[in-house]
């Protein structure tokens, strides 16, 4: 494999982390926040492929992830981790991106199984997005076909360690280099691809916008972008509405 640069993952661009706070109290508070973040991870599992089968044993009585503070959550709003457990077809990738953009930061993406690393056994498939890292900022890959629960939990502990030491902030990379990610997404989904989330607006709002947030691909997006409209409220049955 020639493209070993993809693993391990490092955020490119301005990887400064949080601005270092002044004063003892704020520093202690930041440490506390980082510690609590690492010890309380709500995960949303997007179980696309066969890797999903290794998660129930990791969560239930045999390996019990809850003792590490990791528990499943069911909506992207509540979740911290997006687990992508297996091959990602082009159709499912759209849903994964929609889900990812709805999560509140700091958020982490974990790719489980070889398929998310490099396409795995679907390398020659026409319908599979091979390297997840090109479309979303992945924090951690757990390789294997499939990784056993021990490997999943070891990976989780590594993520916890990264969060505690402030290394896991790839989610900011999505805002800083949105143009890069959007370009890859457009390559796959076509020029008219758009999500309901205003990523550029969010980047501006949270002060995460960088020189690579906008570019040729976001310009293309803004040409096609249709603003979200509230659905029209209609009463009555379907037949009555027909003229």
């Amino acid at each position, binding site marked *: 494999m020639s493209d070993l640069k993809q693993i391990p993952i490092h955020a490119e661009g301005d990887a400064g982390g949080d601005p270092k706070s002044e004063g003892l109290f704020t520093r202690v508070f930041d440490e506390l926040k980082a510690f609590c973040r690492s010890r*309380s991870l709500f995960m949303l599992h997007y179980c696309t492929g066969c890797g999903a089968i290794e998660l129930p044993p990791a969560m239930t009585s045999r390996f019990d992830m809850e003792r590490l503070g990791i528990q499943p959550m069911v909506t992207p*709003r509540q979740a911290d981790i997006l687990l992508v457990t297996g091959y990602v077809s082009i159709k499912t990738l759209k849903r994964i991106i929609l889900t990812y953009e709805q999560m509140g930061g700091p958020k982490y993406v974990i790719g489980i199984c070889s398929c998310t690393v490099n396409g795995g056994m679907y390398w020659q498939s026409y319908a599979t997005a091979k390297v997840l890292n090109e479309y979303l900022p992945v924090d951690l890959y757990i390789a294997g076909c499939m990784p056993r629960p021990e490997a999943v939990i070891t990976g989780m502990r590594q993520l916890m360690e990264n969060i505690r030491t402030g290394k896991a902030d790839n989610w900011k990379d999505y805002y800083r280099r949105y143009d890069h990610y959007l370009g890859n997404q457009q390559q796959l989904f076509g020029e008219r691809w758009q999500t309901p989330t205003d990523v550029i607006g969010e980047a501006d709002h*949270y002060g995460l916008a960088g020189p690579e947030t906008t570019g040729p691909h976001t310009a293309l997006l803004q040409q096609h972008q249709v603003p979200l409209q509230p659905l029209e409220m209609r009463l009555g049955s379907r037949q009555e509405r027909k003229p």
Partner: protein
Amino acid sequence: MDALNLALELILMPLVAFVVGLFMVLMMRKIAARIQRRVGPPLLQPLYDIIKLYGKQTQISHGLVHDIGIVMAVGGYVAAETLLPVPGMDGLADRGGLITLAYLMMIPSLGLALGVGQCANPNGSIGIARALTAMLAYDIPFVIVIFGVAWHYGTTNLADIIALQQAAGPGGWGAATMPLLALAGLFSVHAMLGKQPFEIYVAPAEIATGPMVEMGGKFLGGLFVMQTFQFYTAGVLYASLFLGGGENWLTFLVKAFAVVAIPMCIAFLFPRYRTEDLLKMIWKWPVLLGLAGLWLIMH
């Protein structure tokens, strides 16, 4: 001096409730873990969750009413805590009374309904509709129980009710003198906590946690804080009505935790009722028990 004391109590009582409630949530998760033969979360896990949720960097609000809804949900319980006497602190208990408390305990659900309404998520609307229906179900036996206790002791003052029970000793506790009402009360406490089998409005796999579906960051953090208050309120209210309140902090905590532990030990063995079955079940058994208990104490 008196006003200063009262102000101090009003600050301390919700704080005590929060800390005790954190441990009650931990107990609930530990019981669930033990029943499923797991180890369960570490000691400070509920606190980690809350700090993490409040420390989220991007917060997704759906508008002003969404924010106010969460404030109402937490504020209703904070107000309720000042009416629940703990050993050494009566707060507003002798001014407010049981009826005010019963009203205050409805505010969180209504606040949540407001907040969820603005999220405009269909799962949330289904969830909150179910939650309010469940409230309609368990509030009827709850009101019967409160009426029965107030009738029996001739007062709606919670501090007096506790004093009367403590003067009579364990044989004079509400649970001994009004066993049927105590049973009905336990039923409605179980439904009030919203755990299985009365968990239809959360239903994580079906309607994606219902009212909580659009809540992330500090909003979910607010709901986690609300849950700690909810456990504390249910446990302490039941202990005050039927178990003689707390003579000292030790017996107080033992009773409050025991009251919460009983429904939790039952809960994780069950799947859940559908809304109409929940209504049927609660309007039949606890209400009948409560009415029979009322008849007994009135004759």
